[in-house]
């Protein structure tokens, strides 16, 4: 039912926009669409409507169908998603909203959603988030609804960008402390006492001091996340020199064959690799 419903909508919306296009082309288009009008419309009585070309009849038939379904909306609301709000999609989606449909929209360029949202469209899928909540709560300790599709991905990249930079800086500190005659384990302890104490440092520090990197989060994935974060930064014209410097370190680590080790193996990138050493 849903599939044919959508198809009918497409047919009728295009018919509507045909009113605005040059007549000859419209006639040609409408006649081909009339042929494709779904079968369950063909039985509708014509006499209730003033005489009009066939395509407008099917549009009106659809509207009565729509109002029938919105009358049923209280019992069983039909939610429709619409992907792509370009030259065609935007007016098509607008028509759906004007006809009373419960529409959720998405577009690659977010601001194209704005006119539709002001007409009443939803963005992202908050209702789906609520439905999924019990399952998310089993898997996680906390959940956030961040709005439009894309925001979750962006938030994840920002967090992992900060994390990748922090691990790179921590690596610099551990190596420097060792080279100047300090005990890196004491550095780990000192850090754990102060304002920059983070679970990641306390957890990874001890194994890093022993040059061990048991894989919890593969280095290749951390580098991928940094690369994507840098791409996001570029797309909004934001320089991120620290993330860029950190990314280089992960690339060096990858070239040393450490892709599948834990991302804390990035510390190896700072160590001098002698030519006759093997991995």
């Amino acid at each position, binding site marked *: 039912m849903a599939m044919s419903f959508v198809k009918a909508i497409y047919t009728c919306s295009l018919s509507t926009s045909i009113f605005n296009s040059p007549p000859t082309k419209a006639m040609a288009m409408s006649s081909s669409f009339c042929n494709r009008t779904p079968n369950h419309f063909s039985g509708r009585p014509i006499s209730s409507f003033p005489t009009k070309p066939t395509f407008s009849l099917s549009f009106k038939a659809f509207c009565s169908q729509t109002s029938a379904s919105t009358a049923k909306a209280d019992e069983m609301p039909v939610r429709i998603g619409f992907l792509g709000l370009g030259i065609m999609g935007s007016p098509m989606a607008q028509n759906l909203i004007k006809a009373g449909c419960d529409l959720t929209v998405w577009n690659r360029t*977010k601001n194209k959603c704005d006119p539709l949202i002001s007409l009443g469209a939803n963005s992202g899928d908050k209702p789906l988030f609520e439905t999924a909540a019990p399952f998310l709560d089993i898997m996680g*300790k*906390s959940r*956030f609804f*961040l709005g*439009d599709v894309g*925001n979750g991905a*962006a*938030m994840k990249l*920002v*967090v992992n*960008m*900060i*994390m990748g*930079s*922090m691990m*790179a*800086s*921590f690596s*610099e*500190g551990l*190596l*420097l*402390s060792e*080279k*100047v*005659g*300090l005990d890196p384990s*004491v*550095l780990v*302890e*000192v*850090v754990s*006492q*102060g*304002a*920059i*104490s*983070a*679970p*990641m440092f306390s*957890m990874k520090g001890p194994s890093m001091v022993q040059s061990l990197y048991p894989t919890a989060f593969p280095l290749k994935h951390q580098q991928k996340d940094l690369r994507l*974060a840098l791409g*996001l*930064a570029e797309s*909004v*014209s*934001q*320089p*991120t*020199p*620290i*993330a*860029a*410097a*950190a990314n*280089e*370190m992960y690339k060096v680590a990858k070239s040393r064959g450490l892709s599948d080790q834990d991302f804390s193996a990035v510390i190896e990138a*700072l160590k001098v690799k002698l030519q006759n050493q093997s991995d």
Partner: protein
Amino acid sequence: MGEEIGFLGLGIMGKAMSMNLIRHGFKVTVWNRTLSRCDELVEHGASVAETPAAVVKKCKYTIAMLSDPSAALSVVFDKGGVLEQMCSGKGYVDMSTVDSDTSSKISEAITSKGGCFLEAPVSGSKKPAEDGQLVILAAGEKKLFEEALPAFDVMGKKSFFLGQVGNGAKMKLVVNMIMGSMMNAFSEGLILADKSGLNTQTLLDVLDLGGIANPMFKMKGPTMIQKSYSPAFPLKHQQKDMRLALALGDENAVSMPVAAAANEAFKKARSMGLGDLDFSAVYEAVKFPENSS
């Protein structure tokens, strides 16, 4: 330690630390380059001396808390300085953050006069200083460390003895290097979130739940979002520490690309006139174009 303790330097840190000592029953004689800053301490029971030498003359142990290497050296070597009255039986505890060469220089001068020396830079800024929650990174004369512990326990929550002179200074610089880089990474994250249409407070909430949660992000995040940079740790001092850490890396040919990039951001912030603000004001330098958002 029922003796009289001397305290040189009543800046953001020194004032809070000496106040803690007084509140816990220590007899303290203070000195500050700008004498008026001594007034509040005097109201709480401290004595004042006119010169560092006068403080050392009066006290068995003298603590110093100066802003940078040149101030730390000046207090020791200048006319009316510590050296004039340093002698056997006295101890000098320098809690300033300086490079290890400066610390070694001071150590040599003190010990050549028969005195004992301990470097003891701290990790922690204004609030931990007020609350007596500093982390103390001492090195030098072990005996003096043990004698200073009652005072350290009042000013701090944990004290480390790290061995020979220079080790405390180095440890402090390494910690502050990581901190400066982290503040930069955090700033980059905040501005990227903002420019990508995310809510920056939500980013703070997300960070606070995970493996990279830390007190600095929790404390500074909200004030950075509000562009509020009242100095707990002045940016110019953070940049000084980055510079000293990079010099340490230089001396030992240690690769430090992230720290180098962070130092650049702090330099830019200084050139924007943000040196006297809190070091979190580097956020304003990271934003691009400046003052956006």
